[in-house]
């Protein structure tokens, strides 16, 4: 089983991103996804920068993968996509069928990202025929549904699960961060830069519910499957994905690695994790429940 680090979903300052990956190069993570997957307006890091960072990470022994934008609308978005697809060195995570089209036509092996809707074995088989070597399960898929997928998984196909981080739940043409500041999207003043983990949206009784991240809406709670290594192994998960957060990502990676290797008891990992997360934990999706629910802790409490 391997650990991966997903693409940064937020908009951070350029130096912060470079420093972040310098730090990641020294963490026990096997695969690193790089690239802007959320908003085409975020421009502080260009495609060549991502490739340069990918090279550094590859030198440090990581498998680097370039991730493509999830919502591709304009010709300039497509231009950037082509550049990523044709980089010639690193494999690409396709996050839209346009990317699948380009990569399959050029016969470049790819990763079918979490935003390709792979909900059944027939679709997975089709992706395999087109050149997918790995797929990332949709975040709302349960362990049980995954086990059906795994039963007929195409030969050589790796399965990756989004296992830690605020869940990327929805995309819009509209920017909710800009809306919060009453700014038009085209003149958003890059307000996302002020929120390393997105902006928490609460219900009218003050309960954290969602997080606004530009055109993306996330869960406020942090999806956390650190207590599910056994069930992920049983289901044949090959790669466990951690999604970067504003702070403590390296610590989160370390805790996942130690738990995965059985060097840290789960209970202890969960405890240590609590102070590292930007919000409380959830794991409902994995258990076939509403995503917002937290069953692992419930289970632990019931047992106590």
């Amino acid at each position, binding site marked *: 089983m391997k650990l991966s680090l997903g693409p940064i979903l937020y908009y951070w300052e350029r130096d912060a991103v470079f420093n972040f990956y310098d730090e990641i190069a020294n963490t026990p993570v096997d695969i690193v996804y790089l690239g802007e997957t959320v908003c085409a307006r975020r421009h502080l890091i260009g495609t060549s920068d991502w490739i340069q960072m990918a090279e550094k990470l590859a030198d440090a022994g990581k498998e680097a993968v370039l991730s493509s934008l999830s919502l591709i609308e304009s010709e300039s978005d497509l231009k950037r996509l082509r550049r990523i697809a044709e980089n010639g060195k690193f494999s690409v995570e396709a996050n839209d069928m346009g990317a699948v*089209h380009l990569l399959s036509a050029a016969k470049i092996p790819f990763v079918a990202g979490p935003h390709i809707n792979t*909900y059944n074995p*027939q679709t997975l088989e*089709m992706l395999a025929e087109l050149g997918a070597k790995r797929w990332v399960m949709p975040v709302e898929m349960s362990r049980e549904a995954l086990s*059906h997928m795994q039963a007929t998984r195409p030969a050589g196909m790796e399965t990756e699960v989004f296992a830690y981080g605020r869940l990327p739940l*929805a995309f819009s043409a509209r920017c909710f961060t800009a809306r919060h500041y009453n700014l038009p999207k085209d003149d958003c003043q890059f307000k996302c830069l002020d929120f390393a983990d997105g902006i928490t949206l609460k219900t009218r009784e003050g309960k954290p519910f969602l997080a606004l991240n530009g055109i993306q809406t996330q869960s406020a709670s942090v999806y956390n499957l650190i207590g599910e290594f056994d069930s992920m192994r049983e289901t044949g998960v090959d790669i466990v994905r951690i999604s970067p957060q504003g702070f403590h990502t390296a610590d989160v990676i370390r805790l996942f690695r130690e738990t995965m290797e059985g060097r840290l008891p789960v209970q202890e990992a969960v405890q240590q994790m609590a102070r590292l997360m930007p919000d409380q934990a959830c794991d409902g999706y994995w258990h076939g429940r509403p995503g917002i629910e937290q069953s692992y802790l419930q289970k632990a409490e019931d047992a106590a």
Partner: protein
Amino acid sequence: MSLELVCPAGNLPALKIAVDNGADCVYMGFKDNTNARAFAGLNFDQNSALEGVRYAHSKGAKVLLALNTFPQSDKWERWQGAVDNAVELGIDAIILADPGLMRYAARNYPKLRLHLSVQGSATNYEAINFYHEHFGVQRAVIPRVLSLAQVEHVVKNTPVEIELFGFGGLCVMVEGRCALSSYATGESPNTCGVCSPAKAVRWQKTPQGLESRLNGVLLDRYGDDENAGYPTLCKGRFEVNDETYYAIEEPTSLNTLEMLPEMLEMGIAAIKIEGRQRSPAYVEQVTKVWRAAIDSAKRAPKSYAVQPAWMAQLNKLAEGQQHTLGAYHRPWK
């Protein structure tokens, strides 16, 4: 090129009314979660589907079948059976979102016309052309996120016919890429064909006002003087940095009547009216207005003007009694 009017048919009476009032096509779903309006009391069983197809065809209208949810891994046969059934019923085209299901349809029924559902989330021509090359998809419904200029760019770069939403409830999220509903309730459009399902909704009068909750999550609270709408998750009022407002989207309807000449000019193949969950009376009025508007725009595109009576009629039917041009109109974004 002709511009088709595609109207919603949640049941047989709505289908007949749409056809009688000038719909070129009606779209419907079966009574299960194979379509994105899997609501109780809605949709077609075998008999009503047969009668619907017979009625529409006898009046020269086409019937499209929405099979636009994503087959869940262990229940594939239900979706495959729905495709088989569509062929037997003589459906004119099926509207699909799932690539696996498209592959099944294309391989087994090469003559069956395939449309890419809005749930397929194709927002650029590379994505649309993918479905065309691999499965022979002939028409794509574009998510309600592109500006009109972006739509035009798509039209110029694909052999696939483009269908746009013209009127009805507005999804602010890219269709097919929204799991907000399953996050709160366990059921989403992709997996179950529902959003913010009624069975998860609770209304409660409290000293703070009338509260709407979705599986326990407070979506909004209404004062005595406020109209309470259906509690769709993204249309609630929330607190962000201590400010309470419609943080994601205000309850409003899409209405693009005034853009008809531009849509005709750029070669849009069809206009879709949302609302299979709405009443036959809604279908009747919307179909009438849009039929008149499309005929008027086709007859004299240069002098076309939106008639105040059309607008008044549609505004009465709109959710929240407001309408918007949506993303087609750039400043909205």
